[in-house]
């Protein structure tokens, strides 16, 4: 059926199907995502200040231990089975911050423990996060390339 035109019957069904399909509550999801995402980011900001005021970090260098701490918290919440419930409630609010990235890696690692460390955890850990890493690195490369060319042209 792939790439084929829909048949007359399928088009007729589409109308009935659309009528009964429950839509995602978009407005509710956006509002909840805004507040939960904001809350997670606020906790992150608090941790950043914690590292700046109590340890020898600057505003620039404090982001590394902050991310590590947030991912550690995300790992605990994933392991205790809380993060997937938070995800159902908050949607993008818990998926977009770095904790969501941590959850994607950690949940896959936990899931494939039953296939062993090498064939299970090792080869499946990044099955959800892999695309994020690949396309993240690639777009960073493209952006850096553009920047280099422009600054080069500018006679820098």
């Amino acid at each position, binding site marked *: 059926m792939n790439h084929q035109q829909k048949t007359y019957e399928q088009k007729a069904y589409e109308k009935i199907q659309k009528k*009964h*399909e429950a839509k995602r509550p978009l407005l509710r999801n956006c509002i909840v995502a805004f507040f939960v995402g904001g809350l997670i980011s606020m906790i992150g900001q608090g941790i950043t200040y914690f590292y700046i005021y109590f340890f020898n970090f600057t505003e620039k260098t404090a982001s590394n231990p902050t991310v590590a701490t947030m991912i550690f918290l995300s790992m605990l919440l994933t392991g205790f089975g809380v993060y997937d419930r938070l995800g159902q409630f*908050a949607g993008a609010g818990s998926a977009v911050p770095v904790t969501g990235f941590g959850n994607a890696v950690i*949940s896959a690692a936990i899931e494939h423990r039953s296939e062993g460390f090498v064939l299970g955890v090792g080869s499946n850990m990044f099955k*959800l996060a892999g695309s994020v890493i690949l396309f993240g690195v690639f777009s960073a490369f493209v952006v850096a390339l553009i920047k280099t060319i422009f600054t080069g042209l500018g006679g820098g």
Partner: protein
Amino acid sequence: MLAGGQSWIFNRSPIILSTGIVGGPFEREGRIPEEFDYFYDDLWMGEDSYEKAHRKLIEEAVTIALKKGNIQKEVVQFMIGGDLINQITPTNFAARNISIPYLGIFSACSTSMEGLAIAASIINNDGANYIITGAASHNAAAERQYRYPTEYGAQKPPTAQWTVTGAGYAIIGKSNNQSKPRPKITSATIGKVVDMGLTDPFNMGQAMAPAAVDTIIAHFNDLGRDFDYYDLIITGDLGKIGRTTAIELLKEKGIPVAENKFLDCGLIIYREDQPVQAGASGAASSATVIYGHIFNQMKKGVYTKVLSIATGALLSPMTFQQKETIPCIAHAVSIEME
């Protein structure tokens, strides 16, 4: 005996001798815990993988069915069953331990009624004295195969359904010298694969609704029956949205639907406040509800004539990733009290 284009009439009325229904912790909190024979306290069931736990569900359901029917497994000729996992390994591996000659079948969530139709046909034609048939599914094993890791925090849309953790098996035998009335299998309609072009794996109910309607109409045409013939027509796992869609489709085809007689197993098993979105799904949805709840209701005299239609979505994660549409199927079996 063949009736019409795609139905069988079982004139020697094979009967259901006993059933074994097991479930997980989430099913125990549901609406019909008293209809289950046994519950496991967690999804691991004392095993080290969800797939092994899945196998255990099947072994336990078969053992319970044999015990309740007081039937030795040596006299059972065949076991017919399946599940949702790749190569139906949980059922295959359970059959290794159960050690009854075995036919593994895959028809996604319509496996239960496909198995029952085949079993009844074999018994009706003297191919066996006893057959045990059923289906099973395991929430976490299905989630990890079809969707995401179980602990991954993805938001499910309101059309999504919850895979039942459980197994339902029934022993089918010949109808003679029975002291008490038992549910007998009177006919079956084998469904066609129907594809209405839907692609969303989080909306199985609406993908499967046209298949259910197609099989119901074929059943009515083949046997010259209509809604009035049955006390109850029950689908396997259409869920809230799939059910209302099926009702509209039936009405559109000129079949008046008595909505209080048209139920769905996926809306019976869990309570309203459990977070299952549009309802239950999975091969065990129809297997546990039909073999447990509905049979008990029939024995109590609530229903005498029931048409059970189990619906299945025949997709795999790969066909979804390759952007194929979702083909679906439905098999119907009519069950009547003696």
